[in-house]
């Protein structure tokens, strides 16, 4: 497992834990306390930020070749997948309220930064998953 894969795993684990924990806490608090206080559970999304510590935790190998053309290609494709997934989320979040709530409905501006945050988390998650999928598929059966 190379450095990119380790960092991708860190992102996948931290983001998954953050989203599951935040979703669970928001759900529990919503049942017990109601809407405004339940949103405090979103604070658990901060756990996803630990994924950004990957470059510090997994340091580059000294003297070794850190990445080749294949690694760059994988990273480029993963970045594209991450961007596509993130913008799909933006598109859905922007269009679904229009059809569900109706064109005359209003939403609080406090939800707008959530769109950006959701897109960012989706980007990192999809980017990491795409890296792992590409390395995983190509690693099978390689002898050299």
């Amino acid at each position, binding site marked *: 497992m190379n450095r990119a894969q380790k960092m991708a795993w860190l992102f996948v684990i931290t983001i998954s834990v953050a989203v599951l924990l935040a979703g669970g806490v928001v759900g529990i608090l919503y049942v017990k306390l109601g809407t405004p206080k339940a949103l405090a559970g979103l604070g658990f999304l901060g756990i996803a930020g630990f994924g950004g510590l990957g470059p510090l935790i997994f340091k580059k190998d000294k003297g070794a070749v850190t990445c080749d053309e294949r690694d760059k290609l994988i990273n480029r494709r993963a970045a594209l997948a991450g961007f596509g997934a993130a913008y799909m989320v933006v598109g859905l979040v922007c269009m679904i309220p*229009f059809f569900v709530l109706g064109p005359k409905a209003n*939403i609080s501006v406090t939800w707008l930064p959530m769109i950006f945050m959701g897109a960012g988390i989706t980007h990192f998650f999809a980017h990491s998953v795409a890296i792992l999928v590409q390395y995983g598929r190509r690693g099978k059966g390689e002898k050299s």
Partner: protein
Amino acid sequence: MNKTQKVALVNLAIMPLSIAVMMYPLVEIFVFKRTPERFGLYWVVIVFCVVMVPSVILLRRKQSASEVESDERDDLIKKRAVIASFISVWILLAGVTVIPRFVIGIKGSIPVWLLAFINLGVLLGAGLVYAVAVLIQYGRRGKGEKS
């Protein structure tokens, strides 16, 4: 002028028009404090059609039969322009999602149809940045080339 440049020029001409049309409801709501006319909301669809038709025609039309689709240099230019466009999407998205909170206030609200315009506006902005990035790169590299 090759195909990439022609498409970029068309986009550069029409994207600002699209953005201006999309700004109409925003100006109506936030500057004039009134609800925009319903017809104005459909302008963006018309503008999108206007963007697509010349783009498709230009894409299919070649300077000569021997004209290649794209070479290594064109691919590199397009790749860099895509990166610039991606970065601009994030900056624009951050801007349109964070700034209204400070402008309207934390207790303010916006109509949901504005979200659709935010989505399309960011896409148009990214397209504009892509077109500008393509033209700047061709423009700078074209100067002084003899061969």
